[in-house]
């Protein structure tokens, strides 16, 4: 964009390595690399100076669980709107899920999506591919071809591979290609027509429940198979404390497993559904307040490697159906940083380092991407975050095509003021 050096003056740098913020000046060169991070850098005339006093510089976030909906449901989201939503939330890289229509289950589809992304997205988009052909859980998809075209993970996300025999073969087959097999853990027969967590609240609302064991049995199965096949596995969107304990056990045994937790499973419980509010309907469902607390402990202890949002846009029309008929899922890209800052970092329940580790550094390590830690020689890829102002989450704020978030109409603390990506400023809220 500009061919000048940029000096980010007096910012507080967040890093996964330190629970406290470090005050420093950051110099970014013309090519978009960080050339210096010092407690004081002298301003020179050729530098564009950006005052960051009282602001926090956060490494660009990476979301490993995003539904971009393109192709097929462009009425909900497109690669362009989804990635713009990401930028709006401070996310500078993401991994798309393959449950599009048609699904991303072949080399051709992978190429198509990645080509579109190159044309239309201002941030890197990676994609996953399906484990099974057409996500039907019947036969393997052409995994090697997808890998060659750029897939970094395979998953049938949205549904589990119900057939244990086939899932075993998928794990074995994927080993050769160094691909992560990611699993949406659910036992469909137990979930049946459930629409929320099975418990006191579902009884009271008369909504068929999804028992916690539907997920836990599936986690246990998948990890047993990963243990047996010595494959690398990733457990998506864990919602129950018992499920987390299963992961802990297998981790201690040395199984190569990583796991993710979503902001909503940390922040909300079944009780938030209230009067059948479909903005709180997602799969896996919101569990109990005890689960919220224990999942947060698990994040701190490292049972969960990453935070990912499971950004799942749906139309207002669909979300306005009755609770049982409305689709599962909420958006997350634009609210993850703000909501976790508001409810966890600001009240002191976690520090910035945990957030940076799990929502910026670790996802990149898992996928073998270069680090975006704010330090010399690294590419400049960070957010200027203003903790002193608030953001109102409304249609005008959002870049996503869909507004199905429980934060709609709410005010969250903090603001993503700027998003720096190499030598570009992707977002600058101070310049209208």
């Amino acid at each position, binding site marked *: 964009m500009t061919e000048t050096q940029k000096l980010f003056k007096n910012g507080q740098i967040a890093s996964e390595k330190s629970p406290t913020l470090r005050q420093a000046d950051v110099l970014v060169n013309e090519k978009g690399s960080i050339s210096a991070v010092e407690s004081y850098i002298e301003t020179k005339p050729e530098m564009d100076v950006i005052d960051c006093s009282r602001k926090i510089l956060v490494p660009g976030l990476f979301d490993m669980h995003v539904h971009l909906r393109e192709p097929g449901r462009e009425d909900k989201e497109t690669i362009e709107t989804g990635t713009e939503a990401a930028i709006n939330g401070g996310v500078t890289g993401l991994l798309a899920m393959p449950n599009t229509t048609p699904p991303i289950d072949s080399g051709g589809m992978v190429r198509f999506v990645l080509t579109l992304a190159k044309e239309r997205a201002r941030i890197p988009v990676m994609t996953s591919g399906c484990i099974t052909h057409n996500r039907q859980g019947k036969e393997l998809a052409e995994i090697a071809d997808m890998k060659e075209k750029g897939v970094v993970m395979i998953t049938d996300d949205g549904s589990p591979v119900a057939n244990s025999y086939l899932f075993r073969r998928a794990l074995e087959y994927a080993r050769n290609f160094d691909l992560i097999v990611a699993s949406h853990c659910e036992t469909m027969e137990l979930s049946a027509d459930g629409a929320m967590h099975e418990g*006191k609240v579902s009884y009271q609302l008369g909504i068929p429940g999804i028992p916690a064991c539907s997920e836990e049995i599936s986690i246990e199965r998948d990890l047993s198979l990963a243990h047996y096949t010595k494959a690398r596995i990733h457990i998506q969107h864990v919602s129950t404390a018992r499920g987390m304990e299963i992961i802990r056990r297998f981790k201690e045994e040395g199984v190569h497993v990583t796991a993710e937790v979503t902001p909503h499973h940390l922040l909300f419980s079944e009780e938030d559904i209230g009067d*059948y509010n479909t*903005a709180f309907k997602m799969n896996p469902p919101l569990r109990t307040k005890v689960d919220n607390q224990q999942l947060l402990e698990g994040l701190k202890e490292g049972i969960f490697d990453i935070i990912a949002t499971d950004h799942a846009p749906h139309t207002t*029309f669909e979300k306005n159906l*009755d609770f049982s008929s409305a689709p599962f899922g909420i958006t997350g890209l634009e609210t993850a940083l703000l909501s976790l800052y508001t409810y966890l970092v600001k009240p002191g329940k976690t520090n910035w380092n945990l957030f940076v580790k799990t929502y910026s550094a670790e996802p990149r390590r898992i996928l073998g991407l270069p680090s975006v830690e704010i330090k010399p020689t690294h590419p400049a890829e960070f957010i200027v975050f203003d903790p002193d102002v608030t953001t109102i989450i409304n249609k005008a704020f959002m870049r996503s095509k869909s507004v199905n978030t429980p934060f709609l109409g709410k005010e969250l603390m903090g603001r993503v003021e700027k998003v720096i990506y190499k030598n570009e400023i992707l977002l600058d809220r101070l310049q209208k």
Partner: protein
Amino acid sequence: MTKQDPEKKKRRKDLLDIDSISVEEIDFLVKTAQPFKELFTRSVKKVPTLRGKSVLNLFYEPSTRTRTSFEIAAKRLSADVTNFSVSQSSVVKGESILDTIDTLQSMKVDYMIVRHSESGVPNFIAQNTHASVINAGDGYHAHPTQAILDTYTLKEVFPDLTRKKILIVGDILHSRVARSVSTCCRKLGIEIGVLGPGTLIPDSRPDYMECFKDYATAFAWNPDVIYLLRLQRERQQAYFFPSMREYHNLFGITSNRFETVKSEGIYIMHPGPVNRGVELIDEVMTYERCLINQQVENGIATRMAILYWLQPGENKIRKPNTEIRGKS
């Protein structure tokens, strides 16, 4: 809201479930139902209370009895009644609810009586219309008018309900009647026992429900009333119990159990319609302490009281389908 009518304070726009109403309100409805019932013995059963008002029966699930009960109740209050039956197959499940409501809104309906197979639909409709919404049964969630008419029926038998014992038998899991009746009984200080196949007694039930394994232990608890739930034959029953025969043998009022019922003087209730030979044997229907027909009669009086009590809201125009619903 203006203050000129002291009773207006008690009024609310909708009746959606029992959880949200108070004991005073339940008492008020039961007391109000009384004079309406007395009306039935006269040759002219009509009063002009709701003259000029329109009541719409919006039934997404087939029902003859409840719909007729509401229809008679509304007509006896001199309201104009329209039946709007929407067959589930004609709409993609739930899809056109808002569109339907917008249409009905334009017709300036004052009261909507809603039955739907999915829980929460009446709540959703209530949020989107100025009309008073009465839940006539939604999914597994609630059937508040049934609970109030049952309370009225119980009051006729027991002037003081505190510490009376009611044994609810059958499919608690899938029953909106069980949810509303037990919540209502709980509010009134009645003790609640439940009996049924392990598959149909949810573990997530409220703690106040005493759970019995069989009639022997349940009878030993000395219930005053046995409330039999209707067994839904259409459900995938094979997962829940093996056969009607076995269900009847374990949980029906058989002739042996009927002897105990009679000797203990236990009252029998059932929301109807009865599956003879499943929940009970024929003879129970003519037992003097069988309250089933009384429940039906009280249903009309209670629903009149409810219609009289509710207060339709302001006629606000809602922009159709532009905003996501919710509190924010």
